């Protein structure tokens, strides 16, 4: 990027909006029926016993999120309960239909519990990083006024996001990820350049610092606004390296991948159609775990 251009360009502050939800990165390869690791090619190689070719439809709203449009009337209506979930590919639901996502299962339980209609605003995106959560938080709090906010910090820390001069956002995957997507130098030379730079600067130290800072930032904003919130995060550097000031009271004991039972008879129920992401059973158990934690933490007076 040219330095002189950076200094003179009027900033559009794309990622830093405080009152509108930013568009999901336009370069994310989400087709109607296939998404990243959940590809037609992978499916042909290994079909899933439960989900067929047409079982999953990745319908996104106008801004690119896998949930209904952000309707201000619903958000502001006290008859509705705003459930907001921000996270990565598990939250987006790669390889799963909408009905099996933990976000929507949780919404169903909350609906029964609170007696209100629940709007499940799913701001999970595949390849999203903890930086995505931190950047989205301010507009989410301002625009969606969550009654309950769940932050699902991605389990792998190597995911990062970057901007370009046109305020587009690039999501980059960790260098060591097995299913790294190939970026074509013909179709997306800029994406490839950003990705190479990302690999050149990546290290476990940088990833840990980035994750910790994003967590602390999110915690600060949530506590500042006195929001009912919970989070799930990988256990990184907490014991070996000393201090870990993460709020224990708001943390889910397990991350979603810990609900995947290996070697189970019903193995196909534990994995999504791509055989990488968590499947139906982990999502169900995860939704139950979040619900139980929510009731224990904020339940008093919330039930109908």
């Amino acid at each position: 990027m040219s330095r002189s251009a950076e200094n003179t360009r009027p900033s559009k502050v794309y990622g830093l909006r405080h009152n509108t939800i930013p568009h999901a990165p336009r370069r994310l390869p989400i087709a109607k029926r296939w998404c990243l690791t959940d590809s037609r090619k992978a499916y042909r190689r290994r079909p899933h016993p439960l989900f067929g070719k047409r079982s999953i439809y990745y319908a996104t709203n106008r801004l690119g999120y896998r949930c209904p449009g952000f309707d201000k009337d619903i958000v502001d209506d006290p008859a509705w309960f705003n459930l907001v979930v921000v996270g990565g590919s598990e939250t987006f639901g790669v390889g799963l239909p909408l009905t099996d996502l933990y976000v929507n299962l949780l919404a169903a339980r909350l609906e029964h519990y609170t007696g209100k209609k629940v709007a499940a605003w799913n701001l999970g995106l595949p390849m999203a990083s903890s930086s995505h959560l931190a950047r989205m938080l301010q507009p989410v709090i301002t625009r969606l006024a969550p009654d309950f906010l769940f932050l699902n910090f991605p389990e792998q820390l190597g995911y990062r996001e970057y901007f370009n001069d046109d305020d587009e956002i690039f999501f980059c995957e960790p260098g060591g990820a097995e299913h790294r997507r190939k970026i074509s130098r013909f179709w997306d030379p800029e994406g490839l350049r950003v990705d190479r730079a990302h690999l050149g600067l990546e290290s476990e130290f940088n990833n840990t610092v980035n994750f910790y800072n994003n967590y602390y930032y999110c915690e600060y904003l949530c506590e500042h606004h006195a929001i009912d919130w919970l989070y799930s995060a990988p256990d990184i550097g907490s014991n070996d390296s000393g201090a870990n000031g993460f709020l224990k009271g708001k943390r889910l004991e397990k991350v979603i991948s810990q609900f995947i039972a290996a070697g189970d008879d019903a193995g196909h129920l534990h994995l999504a159609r791509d055989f990488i992401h968590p499947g139906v059973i982990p999502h169900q158990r995860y939704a139950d775990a979040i619900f139980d934690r929510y009731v224990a933490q904020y339940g008093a007076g919330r039930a109908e």
Partner: protein
Amino acid sequence: MTQAPRSELSPEQLMPLFSDVAIPYTGHRDIGTVRWFGADSERHYLANKHPLLGPDDIEYAFNRHGYRCIEFDERERFDEDHLHLLIVGESHAFGLGLPEERSYGYLVARELQACTGREVQHWNLSQGGIGADYIARVLPSALAVLRPNFVILNFPNRHRREYIFADGNYMTCGDGDQVAGSVYTADRHDAVQSAHFEHAHDDSNRFNQWKSFIVCQRHLRAHNAMWVAQASFSMPPRFNQYIAMEKLVPGRIMDGRQALYKDKPGLLLARDGKHAGIGPHADLANDISGLITREYALEIRRLAEKQAQRAG
């Protein structure tokens, strides 16, 4: 820029991140006491002599970890009467080109000593060329290990970003060619710099600086420290709701303060001819001391009264 590669860090020197028992090593560890450092070089001095500061007037005494202060083990030696001032920032806060006793952190410590009647130990964890990332990374460990009563944070411009590599060394890249903490060969340095420029988008930098500030604020509140900061943000105004604006040092940043001394060359600049000199440091120290004593008047009065009772 060509630099000889240094040996890899020993396991105990590998970067402890967010540790409550250890403060991370800097890129220039184990160098002891030196008379010239960084931009404050003998070569520059011989070409441009400073009106007030001679070759023997400045000593940079580094501790084992590479910071310009006493050894961190010494913290346990102090009795309860002692107060502790932590300063984390960039080259101005480090006091480049100035004797330690002329740097603003030291002057604030003396002022607080006068207000409270107690000895104030000054812990300077500043480094030249660092960015907001460095402050947010070092602060949690410094708060836990040094348990300071007062904290001053000096946030530099938002363009500086820090990268830590697998060998535990780190490097800060900015908007120009300046680099801090680089212990790598020219090839590696250039590769990192060009990767940095690929990502150094202005919105990303401003969000990063602001996020680092919020993270620091969170740590400071958790440790219940008395703190002030020097920072200028360029975020939409609605974001200011998260910042304790009253804790920000008012007035001009260091560069602005230098304009006040343009007719006094001996006071204007430090020995390196680039950084702020004795005058702007004294000016800033006055403002910071004023802000601390105003913001924490009650706490400081209590400290002074307690000390008076003990003495009585």
